């Protein structure tokens, strides 16, 4: 839930949220039932559908989190700013889920 809060402290607050086209998958979802085998999507089409699902412009992605404490402290001195630490539980530091 933290990440739903954090966008508002970033300078990117004013960037409008982008509603991405999730490709064919959403459209296909409207039609229930699997297609006949001959019409099933190819490897390339599946890969393409997956690629279009990612929203690059999602607000929380624009906070550039560092992972090394020493680098953070160095940046703090250089930029003369305090550090915000997001302390969370259990997940790998580069996981998006929280």
């Amino acid at each position, binding site marked *: 839930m933290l*990440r739903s809060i954090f966008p508002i402290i970033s300078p990117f607050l004013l960037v409008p949220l982008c509603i991405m086209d999730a490709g064919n998958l959403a459209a296909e979802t409207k039609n229930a039932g699997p297609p006949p085998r001959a019409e099933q999507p190819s490897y390339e089409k599946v890969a393409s559908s997956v690629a279009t699902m990612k929203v690059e412009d999602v607000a929380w992605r624009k906070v550039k989190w560092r992972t090394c404490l020493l680098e953070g402290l160095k940046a703090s001195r250089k930029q003369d700013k305090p550090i915000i630490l997001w302390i969370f539980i259990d997940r790998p530091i580069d996981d998006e889920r929280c």
Partner: protein
Amino acid sequence: MALKAAMVNSPPEGTEGRLLAEIARSRPAPQGICTVNSKGKVLAWSLGFENRQSILEFLDHVSARFQLVRDATSDVTAERYQRFPTMKLPDVPDSNVAIEFPNKHGPSEKCPLAVEMEEGTLDGRVIGRALDEDGEPRARTELQENYMEARIQIPRAVQREFLRAMDHATEKSGSFTVPEAFADALVTPSYLGQLDVAPAGRLPRSVSTKFKIALGGEIVKTDESNVTLVRIDGDSDLRGKKDPQFVAQDGWSWSHDVALDWYGFVRIENEQITEVVLTAKGNERLVWEHTKFKMWTEPDPQNMMAGHGIDFDGRSIYGIRLQRHMAK
């Protein structure tokens, strides 16, 4: 900058471990927002905020304190808030222990906070979208019940199980059952919402009421002699909820049903899995609430660790792409 709480609670050895231990000394909870000065001394913690404006005021407050103690190594009091600025917790005085640390790690030294991954691990992400009544992806992608991403890693040992199953595919049809561990790694992270609502029911104080994953593989011929594709097809139905006996204790209540149809491919080159691409679509029912907190009406920042109430009943779609990790 993000830090794993597990490392804050159990700091590693070395310089960073000592810095983390000093940070952890004043923590009011295992998770939260912490601010420190350039020497790693805690300025203020907060677990929540009165409203969105309060977050900005907290940052202004911390910045003002930083100006006074930016490089101080002693007499830096750690302020703590349950909710800034209205619910203050007792301050924690400085230990007055100055921790010396270098500017950066040495050339042969690995940062203890870095994520290590074995070469050959399949690494990537699942992306999920909730669909609206018109079948379009829901907006407000900053909310995990609308848009989610999560890391998926499949270790080599689990990949070998898949390859063994493929080797034993029936000669006539070339089909086989995707091994349980491989299928589990793909399906169980594929759900909307935060970590606490995992429908597999494996979290503490949660139960599984249905757990079905049935993925089949079918070998597909390709034009490249060293490449094999395996078509993946199947369905899953995971239903989990908060263990009812604990709802009265802590007030949290949730239930999550996710039923998906899966389709995609596993690519094998030179007898090694190099890529997985999968899509899924289906129905999802997610409810998350608290019996006492006003999660439906209060501003999100007030319940920052728990978020707002969720009541989603609709269609969802997922996409997974994993690639073989190569050491740098």
